[in-house]
């Protein structure tokens, strides 16, 4: 390709103040060899149509803001080069399975409520909490146990990829369950028992049917499918022990 080419973006748009159903709008956007899809959206916003709305922040696939459906697949728009999408046209839609606020902006509230529900935060031991200035030491092997899961940037691509979340919105979902596993696997954490109710629930690990698309679309290389299905084993083990020894727990 040469600099000065243009590509057509078809964007699914919706505005809450307009009664109309969502509509497709096309834009011809010039691009260079190093232009990203996010830059194309910014070009539209700056030069072609200031009403187009989308979220973005870091431009380098670390803030997790700019997720959208690109040709039917959840992607970070800053993570795609337009030259790889040429000759187009490129179909852009808001992330699947979420309520739309406007254009490509979705409502994250459901996920934000699920994060605390799975205990996605570190619960330090009492002595560590009593001495907050003392470092909590960890070996490289202990860190390797959770490091992969800790790379999650909450971009919600995995929720859009997950057919189970689309069918059952109360499913806690890939990212929340991977973050549950992340904290359970952390040697500094003592909150595992408080997370079990969420893990063992119908809407916890057991709604997952191991489709695995969450892992495929993750821009950070997190493997939520593995996290969830390892926790199925743990949940099943506890189920059997609780059945055999009533009063063991709760």
């Amino acid at each position: 390709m040469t600099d000065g080419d243009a590509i057509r973006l078809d964007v699914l748009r919706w505005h809450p103040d307009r009664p109309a159903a969502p509509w497709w709008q096309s834009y011809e956007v010039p691009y260079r060899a190093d232009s990203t899809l996010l830059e194309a959206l910014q070009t539209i916003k700056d030069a072609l149509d200031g009403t187009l709305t989308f979220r973005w922040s870091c431009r380098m696939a670390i803030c997790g803001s700019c997720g959208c459906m690109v040709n039917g697949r959840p992607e970070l728009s800053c993570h795609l080069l337009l030259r790889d999408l040429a000759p187009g046209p490129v179909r852009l839609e808001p992330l699947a399975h979420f309520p739309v606020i406007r254009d490509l902006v979705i409502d994250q509230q459901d996920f934000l409520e699920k994060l605390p529900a799975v205990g996605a935060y570190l619960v330090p031991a009492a002595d560590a909490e009593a001495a907050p200035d003392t470092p909590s030491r960890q070996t490289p092997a202990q860190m390797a146990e959770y490091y992969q899961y800790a790379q999650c940037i909450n971009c919600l691509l995995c929720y859009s990829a997950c057919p189970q979340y689309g069918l059952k919105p109360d499913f806690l979902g890939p990212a929340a369950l991977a973050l549950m596993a992340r904290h359970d696997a952390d040697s500094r954490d003592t909150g595992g028992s408080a997370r079990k109710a969420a893990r063992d629930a119908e809407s916890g690990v057991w709604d997952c049917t191991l489709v695995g698309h969450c892992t495929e679309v993750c821009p950070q290389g997190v493997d939520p499918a593995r996290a969830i299905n390892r926790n199925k084993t743990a949940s099943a083990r506890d189920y059997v022990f609780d059945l055999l020894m009533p009063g063991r727990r709760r």
Partner: protein
Amino acid sequence: MSIRFRRSHEPLFWLLFGAGGLVAALVLPAVVVFTGLIAPLTPHSADAGLLDYARVLTLFASPGARAACAGFIALLAWHAAHRILHLCHDLGVHGGAGLKWSCYGSAAAVSLLAGGLVVLLPSP
């Protein structure tokens, strides 16, 4: 907002499904190869085949062999029931409790039948 969680009984069915998957992956191919290829392709006289009724009955003379056979059949049924139920869900067919009962009920019926054969099969 806090989310209320209800404990799932899925582990029970998932463990049976997993055990059935193991049988389907390891035992079933061996059975298929033996009964479908080795036995018919092995040269034998007309009255002494590898799968003669009397010979197979001798194989199942011990209660352990009968129980293992019934166990394999039952686990395969539970595996199939769980697979069908979740396949329906994935295909957008949400049968609710009725579908659940019919899937797992069928597996339970097959298990009972297989268990009954252990007892009712004649001794050689």
